[in-house]
C-alpha cells in the first residue's frame, strides 16, 4: 500500500504551466474554463497556506494533509436517509436513487447501516415496486429503468433476505421485455425515451437477479456499439457527442453481456484518458467542457473496465500497479475541491452539495485509491490512511462482496419463464402513442 503524505501534485512547480492555453482566441469555452481554473487555483493556494504553517500544534499537523471529512459526510448521509428538505421535491420521482446514493456512500465510508433503517428501506422500496414489475421513482408512480437499477442496487447493498425477497423477479422480467425495442435498445419506461442508460440499467438488474433469458438482450450489444462515435467515446444514442455518463453505461452493459470486445477499445481508451483535466486533475464529461466531480466515477470508472477488457483480450503490456489515469491528481481534486465542510460532496468549488455528487465523488475516490481486484490489489491513498474508502465493483458500483452475495443468492433460484417469449410481439405495445 502506498501512502502519499506529500508532495501534492497541485503544489508542484509545474502545475501552473498546466493551465489552459487559449491561443489568444477567446470563446465561451475558454472563458469558462479559465474561470474554473482560477477558482481551483484559489482553493489550492488556501490549502498551501495551511500546509506551510509551522507544525507547532497537533491541530495544524493533521490539517496539512488532504483529509476526507468522514464525520461530516456521515452526518449528512445519515440525516438524508431519513429526511430531506423541500429542495428535494425535484427528485420526488427518483427516491430509490436517493436510497442508493446514500447507502452506497455509507458503504464506501464503511459505515454500517442500522438494521432497523435497512428494513425500513426495504419496506419503502417495496412501496416503489410497480404491480406490473420494475420499480418506480416513488409509490404509485410508473416503473422506470433508472429507479429500478437504483432500487436493486440499494437492496443488494442491504443484502439481507428481506431485501432480496422484495424483488418480484417474474414481474421484473416482464417489465424488461415490455421496454425492449426491436432494434436492441430499451426505452426507460413505457412511453418513454431511448438512450444507452437503459441498457445498463436493464443488464445490471437482470444479471444481479438472475433473470437473463436468451432473447432479452438480443441485438442489444450491436445497438450499444452503434453509439460509439468518431471521438472514441459513446453518445446517448447513435450520432450524439461522446459523453462520460453514457460511455460508462454502454461499456458496463457490454461487460455484463460479455461483448465488450465489440467496441473499438483503443479509441475508447484514448478518448477517456483525454478527459482528465491537466490542471484540475478531475474529469470532464465531454471534450472542451468543464470538470465535474461526478465524472470521477463515470469517466475514471471506465479505466478499470478497459483494463480488464484489454487484459482479457491478451494484452501483456498493461500496468500491474496503476490504472491508466492520474490517480493522485484525481484524489487531490476530490479532496481539495469537492468537499463541503459541513458534509457532502459536489461538482466543483462554488456548487452546492447533493447526494448524487456525494455518491459519485466518493465512488471515484475509491476507484482512484484501489487498483486491481481481489487477487492483485495495489492501493494509493492520498493524504492520511483514514481517507481510505472501501473498494467498489467497477461494473455495478456497489461493494464487490455485495455483488458476489447477491449473485450467489439469486443463482439458487430458477430463471423466470417469460410470459412473452418473443421480444418482437412485446415491442409494438411500447410504441409510444399512449
Amino acid at each position, binding site marked *: 500500500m502506498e501512502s502519499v503524505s506529500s508532495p501534492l501534485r497541485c503544489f508542484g512547480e509545474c502545475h501552473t504551466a498546466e493551465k*489552459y*492555453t*487559449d491561443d489568444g*482566441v477567446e470563446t*465561451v*469555452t475558454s472563458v469558462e474554463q479559465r474561470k474554473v481554473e482560477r477558482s481551483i487555483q484559489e482553493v489550492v493556494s488556501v490549502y498551501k497556506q495551511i500546509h506551510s504553517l509551522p507544525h507547532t500544534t497537533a491541530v495544524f499537523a493533521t490539517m496539512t494533509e488532504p483529509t476526507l471529512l468522514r464525520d461530516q459526510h456521515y452526518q449528512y448521509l445519515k440525516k438524508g436517509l*431519513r429526511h*430531506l428538505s*423541500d*429542495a428535494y*421535491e*425535484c427528485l*420526488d420521482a*427518483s*427516491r430509490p*436513487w436517493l436510497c442508493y446514493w446514500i447507502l452506497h456512500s455509507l458503504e464506501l465510508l464503511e459505515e454500517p447501516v442500522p438494521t*432497523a*433503517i435497512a428494513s*425500513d*428501506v426495504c419496506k*419503502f422500496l*417495496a*412501496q416503489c415496486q410497480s404491480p406490473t414489475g420494475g420499480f*418506480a*421513482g*416513488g*409509490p*404509485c*408512480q410508473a416503473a*422506470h429503468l433508472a429507479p429500478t437499477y437504483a432500487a436493486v442496487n440499494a437492496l443488494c447493498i442491504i443484502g439481507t433476505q428481506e431485501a432480496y425477497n422484495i424483488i418480484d423477479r417474474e414481474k421484473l422480467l416482464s417489465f424488461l421485455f415490455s421496454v425492449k425495442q426491436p432494434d436492441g435498445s430499451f426505452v*426507460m*419506461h413505457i*412511453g*418513454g*425515451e431511448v438512450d444507452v442508460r437503459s441498457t445498463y440499467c436493464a443488464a445490471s438488474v437482470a444479471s444481479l437477479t438472475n433473470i437473463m433469458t436468451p432473447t432479452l438482450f438480443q441485438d442489444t450489444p450491436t445497438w450499444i456499439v452503434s453509439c460509439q462515435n*468518431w471521438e472514441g467515446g459513446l453518445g446517448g444514442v447513435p*450520432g*450524439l*457527442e*461522446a*459523453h462520460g*455518463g453514457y460511455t460508462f453505461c454502454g461499456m458496463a452493459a457490454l461487460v455484463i453481456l460479455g461483448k465488450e470486445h465489440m467496441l473499438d477499445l483503443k*479509441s475508447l481508451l*484514448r478518448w477517456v484518458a483525454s478527459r482528465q483535466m491537466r490542471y484540475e486533475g478531475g474529469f470532464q464529461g*465531454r471534450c*472542451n*467542457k468543464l470538470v465535474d466531480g461526478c465524472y470521477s466515477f463515470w469517466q475514471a470508472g471506465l479505466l478499470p473496465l478497459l483494463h480488464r477488457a*484489454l487484459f482479457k483480450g*491478451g*494484452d*501483456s*503490456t498493461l*500496468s500491474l500497479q496503476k490504472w491508466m*489515469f492520474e490517480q493522485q*491528481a484525481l484524489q487531490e481534486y476530490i479532496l481539495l475541491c469537492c468537499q463541503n465542510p459541513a458534509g457532502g460532496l459536489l461538482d466543483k468549488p462554488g456548487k*452546492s452539495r447533493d447526494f*448524487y*455528487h456525494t455518491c459519485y465523488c466518493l465512488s471515484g475516490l475509491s476507484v482512484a485509491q484501489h487498483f486491481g481486484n481481489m487477487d492483485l490489489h495495489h492501493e494509493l491513498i492520498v493524504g492520511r490512511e483514514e481517507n481510505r474508502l472501501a473498494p467498489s465493483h467497477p461494473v455495478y458500483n456497489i461493494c464487490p462482496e455485495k455483488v458476489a452475495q447477491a449473485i450467489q443468492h439469486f443463482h439458487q433460484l430458477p430463471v423466470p419463464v417469460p410470459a412473452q417469449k418473443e421480444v418482437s410481439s412485446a415491442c409494438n405495445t411500447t410504441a*409510444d402513442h*399512449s
Partner: protein
Amino acid sequence: MRGGARKGSKKSPKLIMKTRSVICFTALPSLSPSRLCSYKRDRKEWADLEPVPQDDGPNPVVKIAYSDKFTDVYDYFRALLKNDEKSDRAFTLTAEAIELNAANYTVWHYRRVLLQALEKDLREEMRYITAIIEDQPKNYQVWHHRRMVVEWLNDPSEELEFIAEILSQDAKNYHAWQHRQWVLKEYKLWDSELEYVEQLLEEDVRNNSAWNQRHYVISHTTGYSDPSILNREVQYSLKQIKKAPHNESVWNYLKGILQDRGLSSHPGLLEQILELKETHCSPYLLGFLVDIYEDSLENTSGDQVEVLSKALELCELLAQERDTIRREYWSYVGRSLQTKYCSGDPSTTSSAPETDRGSASVSVHQETTCNS
C-alpha cells in the same frame, strides 16, 4: 439521474406560492391565514374526489418535506390516476403537477394519455411545451414530450428555429442536440444544417457539440468517401488548428475523419503536421503524430524501425513532459508499440495473441519477425 437542489434558473415553487398567497389574501380576506392558497381540498370542483395520500410505508426513508401545495396537488393526482379519470380538470392538474416537479415522468405520460383521449389542441400543447423547455432546458421529460407532439402533428416546421434558440443560450445542451439530430433525420431537413454548424463554430471553435454535429451532417449527407469532401474537411480542420492550436476538438475531428482510411495514407499530411509542429505545437499535435506513426507501422510493410523510434520518442516526451496527466496512458502506448513492432529490445517478449479487431494480422507479423 442528477440530484440535488434545483438549479438557479428555474422558478422556485416557494416563490410561486408566495405570489399566489398575496393574491389570495387580498381577494378573499375571510380565509384563515393557514389556508391562503386555493388548495384543491378547499374547492368544490374537487369535492367528489377523495385525495390519495402518498403511502411511503410505516417508517419512511428519504422522506421529502413537501410543501402543502405539493402534497395537495399530488394527492389529487394520485386519486385521478387511481380512477383513470380522463377529464379536463385532470389535464389542468397535470400542468400543476409538472410545474412542481417537471421530472415526474408518470405525470407526463398521463398528460399524453389525456391529450389523446380529450383530443386536445396540439398546437396549444406546442406552445405549452415551448415555454416549459425555455424554463427547464436540461430535463429529459420535456424534450421527449415535445418529440411526441411533433410526431403526432407530423410537423417539424418550428423545430430547427426553436432548438437554435435554446442552443443560443447554451450551445452544448445535450438534450437539444439529441432532439435536433432526431428532427433532421426523421424529416430529412439537412439542407441548411452544415451552414448552421459553421455559424456555431464561428462563434466558438471549441464547441465540441458543433464539431460532432458537423460529423453527423456530413455522415448523413455526402459522406466522407468522396475525396473532394474529405479534403475540404481536412483543409477546414487545418485552418481551425492554425487559428487555435490548443483546441482539442479540431484535432479529434481531424483524426476522426481520417482514421478509417488510415492516417498515414493521406498524402502530405505528415509533412504538414511536422511543419505545424514548429510554430503551432501542442500535446494534441504530438499525439496526432503518434497516431500517424502508429498507423504507418500497422499498414506499411518493410523496415519501420525509424518510425517506431519516432513514435516511442514522442510517447516518452508526452508522458514525461508535455502531457504528464496522461503519463500512465502514454507509457502504455509506448510499451504496446514496442511489444507489437518489436524494437529488438531483448527485454521484450511477444505478446499473447490479441483478439481485438485489426490486430490479428499484426500478431502473426510479429511472430514471424521477432524471434528473440
